C-alpha cells in the first residue's frame, strides 16, 4: 500500500476538500460508451469480473479489489496500484479493506450507479456512502499525455477501420461481413475494443447492428466507426454510396458537410459546447430542414468520450452550456435523416485546443462513392 501516483494525490486532495474519510471507486466490469468506467480511469486497468473497486483512504493508502481472483496478477502488472487483491467474496473483501485502511464515517462512492443493492447494503453497514462521481470527473477533465497518446492510437485505428469499411461496402457483401472487416482492421491497428453501428439500403432511417442484408447497387452504406484503446475512444461517421450517387444524395451530403465545417470552425477552448449543435441546427434550418433537427430524424450533434469529457456518449444540444475545455475529445457529427436521402453519417472526432479543433483522423470527411 505504498503506491504513489498523481491520480492518488489528486483523489486525496479532493477527498479532504470534501471532508471524506475514504473513497470507493466501483466497477461492475462493463465498458460503456455512455458511462465510462471510473475504476478503469483511476487504476489504469479495465476490470474483468462483476465486482471490482479501488479503496482509497484520506491518508493516501489504496487497495484494488478485483474479480475473478485469477485476474489479480494481470491487474497488478498493469496498474500503478501496488496492493491488488483478488476478491472472491466481494462485499466481505470491501468491508475488510475499509477496516484495514482504517476508513470509517463518510466515504465517497464513485461508480455507485453500477453497484448492486446487496453490495451497497453490506458496505453501508460499515460506512456511510455518499455519491462522489464528480471527484473522478474533476480529476479527468484534462487529458494527460498518456491518454492523448491513446487517442492518437485510436485515430490511426479509426482510419484503418474506415478504409476497411469503404473497401467492404460493395455489392453482395453482407452487413455483418462489413463489420467483421472493420473490427479486424481496427484490432490490427491497435484497438482493443470497437463500437460499430451501421446500416445499408436505399433509404436508411438510423444506424443499428448489422443484419444478413447484402449490399445492393444504389445503396447508401453508413457507419459509425469507433475504436477503443485502453478506455479512450474516437469516432468517424462515414457514408458510402454504392454506385453513382443521386443528385439528392450529393446535395444532401454537401449540406451536412457545410454544417459540419461551420460547426468545427466554432470549436475551441472556452466556448459553450452548445455552439456545436446551434451552428449545425442553424444551417439545416436555413436550408429548410428545421423540423428535422429533432429525434427521430437525428440524435445528437456531438458528444464527448470517456471520463471527464463533456456529455460522454450522450448528447450535445443547444442547451449544453458547459464550456469546451482544453484537450477535450469531442465528436462533431451532423448525422441526419433527410427526406430525400434517408439517414446520412457525417463527422469525426476532434481535440479541443485554444486555437480551434484539431482533427485526429487522417481520412477525409466527405461522401465516398464505390463504383458498382
Amino acid at each position, binding site marked *: 500500500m505504498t503506491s504513489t501516483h498523481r491520480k492518488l494525490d489528486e483523489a486525496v486532495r479532493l477527498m479532504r476538500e470534501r471532508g471524506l474519510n475514504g473513497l470507493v471507486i466501483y466497477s*461492475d*466490469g*462493463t*465498458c*460503456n*460508451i*455512455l458511462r465510462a468506467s471510473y475504476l478503469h480511469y483511476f487504476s489504469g486497468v*479495465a476490470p*474483468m*469480473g*462483476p465486482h471490482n473497486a479501488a479503496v482509497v483512504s484520506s491518508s493516501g493508502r489504496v487497495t484494488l479489489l478485483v*474479480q*475473478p*481472483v*485469477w*485476474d489479480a*496478477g*494481470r491487474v497488478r502488472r498493469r496498474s500503478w496500484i501496488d496492493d491488488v487483491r483478488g476478491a472472491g467474496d466481494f462485499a466481505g473483501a470491501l468491508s475488510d479493506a475499509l477496516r484495514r485502511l482504517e476508513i470509517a464515517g463518510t466515504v465517497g462512492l464513485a461508480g*455507485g*450507479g*453500477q*453497484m*448492486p*443493492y*446487496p453490495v*451497497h*447494503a453490506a458496505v453501508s453497514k460499515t460506512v456511510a456512502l455518499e455519491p462522489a462521481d464528480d471527484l473522478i470527473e474533476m480529476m479527468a477533465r484534462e487529458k494527460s499525455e498518456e491518454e492523448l497518446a491513446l487517442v492518437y492510437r485510436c485515430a490511426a485505428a479509426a482510419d484503418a477501420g474506415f478504409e476497411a469499411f469503404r473497401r467492404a461496402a460493395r455489392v453482395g457483401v453482407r*452487413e*455483418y*461481413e462489413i*463489420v*467483421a*472487416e472493420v*473490427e*479486424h*482492421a481496427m*484490432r*490490427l491497428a*491497435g484497438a*482493443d*475494443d*470497437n*463500437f*460499430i*453501428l451501421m446500416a445499408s439500403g436505399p433509404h436508411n432511417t*438510423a444506424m*443499428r*447492428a*448489422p*443484419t*444478413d442484408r447484402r449490399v445492393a447497387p444504389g445503396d447508401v452504406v453508413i457507419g459509425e466507426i469507433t475504436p*477503443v484503446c485502453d478506455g479512450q475512444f474516437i469516432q468517424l461517421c462515414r457514408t458510402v454510396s454504392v454506385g453513382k450517387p443521386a443528385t439528392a444524395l450529393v446535395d444532401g451530403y454537401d449540406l451536412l458537410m457545410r454544417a459540419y465545417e461551420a460547426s468545427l470552425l466554432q470549436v475551441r477552448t472556452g466556448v459553450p459546447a452548445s455552439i456545436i449543435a446551434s451552428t449545425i441546427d442553424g444551417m439545416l434550418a436555413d436550408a429548410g430542414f428545421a423540423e428535422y433537427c429533432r*429525434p*427521430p430524424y437525428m*440524435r445528437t450533434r456531438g458528444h464527448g468520450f470517456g471520463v471527464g469529457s463533456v456529455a460522454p456518449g450522450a448528447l450535445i444540444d443547444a442547451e449544453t452550456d458547459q464550456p469546451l475545455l482544453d484537450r477535450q475529445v469531442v465528436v462533431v457529427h451532423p448525422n441526419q435523416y433527410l427526406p430525400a436521402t434517408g439517414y446520412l453519417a457525417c463527422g469525426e472526432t476532434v481535440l479541443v485546443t485554444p486555437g480551434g479543433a484539431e482533427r485526429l483522423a487522417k481520412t477525409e470527411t466527405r461522401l465516398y462513392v464505390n463504383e458498382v
Partner: protein
Amino acid sequence: MQTLQPTLRLGRDVWDRTAMPVEEFHDRARRLRETMGRRGLDAMLLYGAGLNGCGHPTYLSNYIVKLPFSALVVLPREGEPALMFEGATRGRAAAKATTWIEDVRPCWNMAETCLAVLADRGLMAATIGLAGLPRLVPYAEWSTLAAGLARATLVEAEDVVDGQRAIKSAREIAQVQRASRLVDQALASIPEGYRVGRPEGLHYIGTESGLAALVMREARMQGAEDIRLLIARPGESDWAFRPAGDAAFADGDTVSVHLGASWERYWSEAIRTYVVRADRLDRAWNGELEARFRRIAAGATPGVSVAEWIRAAGAALSAAELRSIDPYGLGHGIGVTPEESPVLAADSTATIESGMCLVVRAVLTGDCGLVVHSDTIVV
C-alpha cells in the same frame, strides 16, 4: 469463464423465426407460469444487466441488450407480459423486431417503469417472484422498487428461471450446436491463418492481438453475434487467462485460446492449445489427450450428481492438472449467457440432466507441457 466485456454487442443481429419461433417463447412462458402457480406467485420479475447478465429477460423475450444496460420482463401469471429495457424511445422499433412481447417500454428509470407496468396490471399488492433482483439491481433502483412495492409480497424465485433455463429445448440445443460449429471453425482458422497468411498482409498473427483479430474476424464472418476471447501461456510459471496483448510469439511457445461466441442469442465456448513452430501454430493435441478429455466429459450423464461428476473428473486428473484448472473451474452450464446454471463445482447440489448444455474444461499434460482444453457438450 469471466472475460473482458466489449463496449457493444456489434455482430450479426438476426431473429430467425424458423429456428426460434414465437411458439418456443409461448411454451417457456407457459412452463414458467405453471411453476408460478405451484409456488403461489401472481407475477415474476425477470431482471438482467450487462452483456453477460441479461439471460433471464433474454430467455423469455428474445430481446438482447446491445450496450451493457439492463432489461426486465414482467410476467404475470395471467395477462400479457411486458418488456422494459434501459434506452431511448427510438430503440423501441428495433426492440419490437426482436421480441414476441407486445408491451415494450424503453426507459431510463427501470424501477419507476416497472412500478407503472405492475400498476397497469393490478399487481401492486401481489405475490411477486424475483429473478435477478435485487442481486443485480443498482442500489438506488432497488430502493425505489422495493418502496413502491411495499404492499406486495416479494419472494426470491430465481431458481424457477435458472432451473428451466438449465434444461434446453430441442431448438435451444440446435442453436448451441450452431454456435459450437462457429467456435470450432473460428479456432480451426488459427493454424491455417498463421501458416498461409493473406496477400493483403492483414492477417499476420505473429502477436497475441493479431491472433485475436484473426479469430474474431473468422467468428464474425460465420455470423457471431457476440464474442469473448482470452489468451493464456500455460508454459509460463504464473500463467493465467487474460486479454490478448501485444506480445509476440516465439518458437516453442505454448498458447491457449479461449473463445466464446454466440449465434442468435446462444453461446458456445471452447479452449484450444497450440504450439508455435517457426512459421505456424500447431494444435497441442493428440489421440491420448482426446481420449482422456472424452472420458471426463462422458461422465456427465443424466442422473449423475454434479458433485459425483466433479469427484470422478478430479480423479482423472493429476494433482498438478487439477491445481491448474482449479481457478477457472471444471465447467458450467451455457445458453443465452456464456455462463449459467449449473456450476460444475464440488459443493453443487444439482444433478446433471438430459438437455443440459455444459462447458467442460480440463488441463491435461501433453508432450509440450500443460494443455488447456474445453468444449461445449450436450447431455
